[in-house]
């Protein structure tokens, strides 16, 4: 029997996390170097490292540093946060619902964010202040969570199956409202803006966005990592088994939902809807290092960050100076790769 092991773990988890960290650092340098003005990778590395304490490099033009520090780096870092945040919440929701198809979309939160964002775009509110769009998207996300949670609760109990179904239903409902709003828009310009927001993108995002997005995403991410053991229990055998091992299941579920919505809301608010990262990245990481969330969550964050930095790099360079929608790129790369993994050696891997 020993010889029939399924090779579902390819790498030791710690080594894989180190590899992903290096990969992410590499992607950050690569993406920061590339653009209308090409800056050598070594120079980019120096400029970035120079910001660390006790490091002192020199030998570049002021303009190069400005391009990197004020234009490219914040956008790249936002891509890390958004990709990482979507991936880690995808992993969380897949364990919470014990469902491999769960992703940040299933609890309706991202549709709620999108609807609120489109309302603020279509009504012209978003023009008054650059923070109005992300802020309304964030409110839309949390409001939807509240609505879905209330729908799925009865007499103080919340059924996760009902929550999943009402989340999907509310998501579809919000999507229809959104289409309805789109049909009422007469200006091509506004329509195009909304379309691009819906397809996801990081065009024009800078430090001011990053400074706000970083808090909910990093705090949510860190907090989720402290629930790794709980996620292991929930994923392995669900509510009964977890309660039998000593978990306050209802409390933990509620905390996980709020933390996930916080991260998803913030990510969607600043990037629009970016599909597939939250679904696919945890699966790929699980294939590599197994389902233990003590490693899976951090590894998903790092891998999701790398994927989105890479996708954003393609989005802004392929047809430069025009931009492609970020969401289409993640899907166009993600789907074939995912299908390849699913069918590798004809084995069922999930």
């Amino acid at each position, binding site marked *: 029997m020993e010889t029939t092991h399924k090779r579902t773990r390819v790498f030791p988890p710690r080594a894989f996390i180190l590899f992903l960290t290096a990969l992410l650092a590499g992607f950050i340098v690569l993406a920061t170097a590339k653009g209308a003005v090409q800056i050598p990778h070594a120079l980019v590395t120096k400029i970035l490292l120079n910001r660390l304490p006790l490091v002192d490099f020199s030998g570049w033009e002021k303009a190069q540093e400005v391009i990197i520090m004020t234009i490219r780096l914040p956008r790249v870092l936002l891509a890390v946060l958004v990709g990482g945040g979507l991936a880690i919440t995808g992993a969380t929701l897949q364990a919470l619902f014990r469902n491999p198809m769960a992703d940040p979309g299933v609890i309706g939160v991202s549709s709620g964010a999108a609807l609120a964002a489109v309302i603020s775009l279509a009504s012209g509110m978003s023009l008054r202040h650059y923070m109005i769009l992300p802020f309304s998207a964030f409110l839309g996300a949390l409001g939807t969570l509240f609505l879905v949670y209330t729908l799925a609760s009865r007499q103080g109990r919340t059924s996760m199956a009902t929550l999943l179904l009402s989340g999907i239903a509310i998501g579809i409902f919000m999507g229809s409202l959104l289409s309805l709003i789109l049909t009422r828009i007469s200006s091509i310009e506004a329509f195009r803006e909304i379309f691009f927001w819906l397809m996801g993108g990081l065009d024009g995002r800078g430090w001011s966005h990053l400074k706000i997005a970083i808090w909910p995403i990093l705090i949510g991410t860190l907090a989720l990592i402290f629930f790794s053991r709980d996620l292991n229990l929930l994923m392995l055998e669900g509510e009964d088994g977890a309660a039998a091992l*000593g978990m306050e299941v209802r409390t933990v579920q509620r905390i996980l939902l709020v933390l996930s919505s916080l991260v998803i809301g913030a990510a969607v608010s600043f990037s629009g809807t970016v599909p597939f990262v939250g679904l696919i990245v945890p699966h790929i990481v699980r294939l590599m290092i197994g389902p233990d969330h003590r490693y899976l969550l951090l590894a998903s964050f790092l891998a999701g960050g790398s994927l989105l930095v890479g996708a954003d790099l393609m989005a802004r360079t392929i047809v430069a100076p025009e931009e492609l929608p970020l969401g289409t790129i993640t899907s166009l790369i993600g789907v074939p790769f995912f299908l390849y993994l699913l069918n590798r050696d004809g084995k069922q891997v999930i």
Partner: protein
Amino acid sequence: MNEGITLKKVSFFRNGQPVLKEIDLQITGGELIGLIGPNGAGKSTLLKLMMNMWKPIEGSILLNQQGMQEYSQKMLARQVAYLPQNSVFESAFTCKEVVKMGRYAHLDRFERESAGDEVIVREAMEQTETTHLRNRLITELSGGERQRVLMARTLAQGARLILLDEPTANLDPHYQLELLNLIESLVEKSLTVMMAIHDLSLAARYAHRLVLLHQGKIIVDGSPEAVLTPDHLRSVYGIEAEVACHPKTGRLFVVPIKLEACGG
């Protein structure tokens, strides 16, 4: 002795239907109790109430003389371990990871497993003879192997009282005996085990005491000889059965003969 669970007039309803009616039950240390009764008699519900997964609508449950509501789930899980029926496993955790999950109730959120936890996990796996499975995936084990790994996890939980829901269901006779021998050896080490079980002969072979549940009520609670009478089997299961003492085991065994008019 203070150790044990006491149920006082416990009733439980679901969707307005009574599932358990005025259950009085006392469990003290060192017993192996078989919980028997037809499908839907309320066996699983009774075990879940004792694990605080549902709360009694009426009556009270005391664990070591203290009301159940005074325990956090974590504190409870250090005293009582519960193995649900027919868990479905689809996640590819290794057996060692699964056994380690038994330590959940002993670990703080910000704490890692200590060397002490590792020792407990290792001993639990040795005791259940699952050490060689430690790097195998739980999803690829046979039913018997899986049940032994889950028993290892239950042991790693370190509880003095163990509740098992149909631990021998879906196991072949070899694995059934193996598992029940293991359970018997635990009771000899002064743990207390209460298990729901359908096989009456196995129940009589291993349990010191049987609790017969029917339509949410305890019909009879006592030695296998007192519980497994042809009359009880007729009124509860609606079967005519022969009950005899087996010459080799010295314990009762039950042979169902034919169906009887129900409820007689």
